[in-house]
């Protein structure tokens, strides 16, 4: 092995000094207690069989990346749980700073004040956005935040049924089922109205009547993009049968929509990706997790919490708090096994929310809502297209149904450099040929026109020459 730049003690002269001090002739002697029978005794078959220089590595990786196709002009119109938003440059510069990027979990508070304060600010900014008092320093993503909320609700209420919307994000539902499998929690879907997507309140009450429900979960807006206007009533019903109420929200929409804290939520969770994170082909993202100021809830909360305190001289200081909930102290009695989380993504979200501020988040939310609604209305003008497919109101994602097969249209759009909506016709057959589109601040009017015109052009051609 030649000397390697990442391994400062790899030169033979340094190794020799160290081995002499240890009193062994070779590094092999330090492995003498490993049974011979398990020693590999050959080289691993990894990489290209030898160490590579930066020059070589860069070429190899960039060649591979060149075989990815991204959609820049226009940006993706694809929804399905995450959408393309612009990431402000400031965010990238801040989260690549060594003090954040290369730090560990702030176990030694005094030397990690900046990291602790940044995470405290993240918790605070989210708390003010959702109007709930306690926010943890992050979960892995929206889906695992949902799963942890279900587990927490079951611990708090000592019940094990969770009621969810029939239109719930199918991936989130799958994840929640996986995570709750060991705890024998049952997840039941509540009926809904096929026109609006709204939860069926009568069915909800029927399912609550046995008082065995730990929590009722609602998405706000839903996976299909609609906003369930009965959300307050759903919360009231849940509470009247001693169940918790969990809201899964879209963070930017809270610039203009009533926050979960005002809608009666006990727990609010979100996919935090819209808050300054790239699409990243699925990760890393950010699981947002907030609860009401209630001892019973806070004590059962999963994940890390940062708190404000002071140092021995009375100066403001920050540290990790309520750690007796966590695995490194409580082991099998911990509220969750989480330790590594998405702290850096939480800092990105804090920077993003700081940049936007109270006015920015509102204008961004308004901008998106109007732009998405405009796009839907323009799409609806095309014969054979209905957008949104549901009669309810939407924020940034919306369903579009087509009188023709969507898959061919989707291919056509791609051939024109447009990434269209995500097909959901297979999962929601009552919507017919249907896809989830998303419009954000990243789309210009000309992007929207291009989308609408291209779809129109395709459908016209299709109708002319069936």
């Amino acid at each position: 092995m030649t000397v390697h730049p990442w391994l400062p003690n790899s030169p033979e002269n340094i190794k020799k000094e160290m081995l002499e001090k240890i009193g062994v002739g070779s590094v092999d002697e330090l492995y003498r207690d490993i049974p011979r029978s398990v020693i590999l005794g050959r080289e691993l078959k990894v990489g290209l069989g030898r160490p590579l220089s930066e020059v070589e590595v860069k070429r190899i990786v960039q060649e591979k990346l060149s075989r990815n196709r991204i959609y820049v002009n226009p940006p993706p119109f694809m929804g399905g749980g995450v959408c393309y938003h612009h990431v402000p440059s400031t965010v990238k510069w801040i989260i690549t700073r060594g003090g954040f990027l290369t730090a560990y979990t702030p176990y030694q508070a005094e030397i990690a004040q900046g990291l602790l304060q940044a995470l405290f600010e993240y918790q605070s900014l989210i708390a003010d956005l959702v109007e709930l008092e306690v926010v943890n320093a992050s979960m892995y993503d929206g889906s695992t935040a949902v799963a942890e909320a279900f587990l927490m609700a079951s611990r708090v209420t000592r019940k094990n049924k969770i009621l969810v919307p029939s239109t719930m994000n199918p991936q989130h539902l799958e994840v929640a089922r996986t995570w709750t499998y060991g705890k024998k929690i049952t997840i039941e879907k509540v009926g809904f109205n096929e026109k609006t997507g709204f939860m069926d309140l009568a069915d909800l009450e029927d399912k609550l009547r046995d008082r065995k429900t730990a929590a009722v979960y609602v998405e706000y807006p839903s996976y299909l993009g609609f906003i369930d206007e009965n959300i307050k009533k759903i919360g009231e019903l849940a509470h009247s049968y001693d169940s918790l109420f969990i809201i899964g929200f879209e963070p930017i929409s809270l610039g203009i929509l009533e926050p979960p804290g005002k809608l009666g939520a006990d727990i609010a969770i979100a996919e935090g990706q819209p808050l300054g994170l790239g699409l990243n082909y699925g990760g890393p993202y950010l699981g947002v997790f907030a609860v009401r100021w209630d001892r019973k809830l806070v004590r059962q909360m999963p994940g890390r919490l940062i708190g404000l305190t002071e140092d021995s001289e009375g100066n403001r200081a920050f540290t990790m708090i309520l750690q007796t909930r966590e695995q490194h102290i409580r082991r099998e009695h911990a509220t969750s096994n989480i330790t590594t989380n998405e702290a850096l993504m939480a800092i990105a979200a804090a920077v993003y929310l700081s940049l936007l501020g109270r006015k920015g988040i509102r204008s961004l939310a308004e901008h998106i809502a109007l732009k998405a609604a405009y796009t839907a209305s323009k799409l609806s003008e095309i014969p054979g297209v209905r957008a949104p497919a549901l009669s309810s109101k939407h924020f940034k994602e919306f369903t579009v149904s087509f009188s023709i097969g969507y898959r061919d249209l989707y291919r056509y759009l791609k051939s024109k450099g447009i990434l269209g909506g995500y097909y959901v016709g297979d999962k929601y057959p009552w919507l017919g040929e249907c896809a989830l589109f998303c419009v954000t601040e990243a789309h210009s009017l000309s992007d929207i026109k291009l989308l609408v015109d291209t779809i129109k052009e395709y459908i016209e051609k299709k109708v002319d020459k069936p």
Partner: protein
Amino acid sequence: MSKWRQSRWNEPLIYELGREGRIGYLVPELEEEIKNNVKLSEVLPEDLLRSSAPELPEVSEVEVLRHYTRLAETSYGVDHGPVPLGSCTMKYNPRIAEELVLDERLVMLHPLQDDEDVQGLLEILYELEKWLAEITGMDRCSLQPPAGAAGELVGALMIRKYHELRGEDRDEMLIPDNAHGTNPASAAMAGFKVVRLLTDERGNLDLEALKAVVGDKTAGIMLTNPNTLGLFEEHIMEIADIVHGVGGLLYYDGANLNGILGIVRPGDMGFDIVHLNLHKTFGTPHGGGGPGAGPVCAKGELVDLLPRPLIEYDGRKYYLDYRCDRCIGRIRAFNGNIIPLVKAYIYILSLGPQGLREVAEQSVLNTNYFISLMKDVEGYDLPYDPSRPRKHEVVYSAKPLTRDYGVTAEDVAKNLLDHGLYAPTIYFPLIVEEALMIEFTDTETKENIEYYARVLKEIAEQAKENPSKLREAPVNTSVKRVNAVKANHPKYVTPTYRVLRLRREGRIKVL
């Protein structure tokens, strides 16, 4: 006396910065055409419009950048100096990986894009999976778990499902007393009862105690090897035989893999399921707590139980295979923490087989070099057979200092901070009193290891002369010793600025 000083800015909260009216980000102006055609009152339900604006600060872009820059300067990472936290493997994070993953051809990929759009990325992930399988001695890996603990949950659920599919009712998970806290927590989340195993005098798992508890209720055992004492489990093959003998499975916690990379593989030691921490062993940064990545690898029929999708190659193209007949389901949305996965790919690609083996050897060399320097330092015990070579880490006990001078492991830690050195993991593993768990990793310089040993010696000498002074540390960090009691007191506990505000206004109760 150390000359090191950490930055001290007395940086206000972001809420205390800025002025009404300032903005840090310009939302694009909405086009006239759109403004003229849609009205907000028609777009959103009126009942659900936000009644009062969120209490966010109003700060300009330059203020935001400066604020977080200053905060980053009062946070200590591997970029600043040694972070020898035991079991955390805080090694240097190569910048080539950081640079390459900023590429838009990764960042702008929507997770639901077709396989044909992401052939380059899928090839990276496919090769990474092959390499991780080779490194662990397993058949296949799922790259989905976002962190080690999530990987453990996957493993525990796979063990649960394995027994269920065989029609067996096994609800006990065996876990050593020195295991990482995530092991019992993950087992409990998967619905298992945790059975604690003891450590013998040599630092191995107590075989007699193991034999006494195994039986037809045993679902499996969760082990890390080398264990958290940094010692290789000498009887690993006997352990495997005993557990397999009663029908249980062996789960390998990969947090401690760094010292044996390319030398011995979990699969060859009899393990059935393995998770890896790419943010430890494979050089991806911790980011102040995350993101990480915790792929899970499995052998033989257990491959069927791995979370889907898996990445397949049909000779022409790569594709995601979602078929899940026996799999435990999804552990998170979409396809995994892609960015750290690509960084780990770059790490392995850069080092190659010889480099990975060198990583292991360097980490073990560094640990044992440090031990040799500590031999004539008084005040610290090396419990569990000091003659045995340690691997990736070593655990000392500061008990002599506590017993003789009232100086605790925490005091030692805080005094290390004053010298510009990050502290070890303290009070862990629980079986060592006043534990100082130290892991320099492969990327620490000989000079810094020597400095660390010298500072520990100085601290021990000061303990003799002036122990009360040690209890005042740290003084060179951006704040002095933090009051944890107040931080957790139901009357003062302040997890957010909102709580502080409401408390000032008298609108919040004691928690």
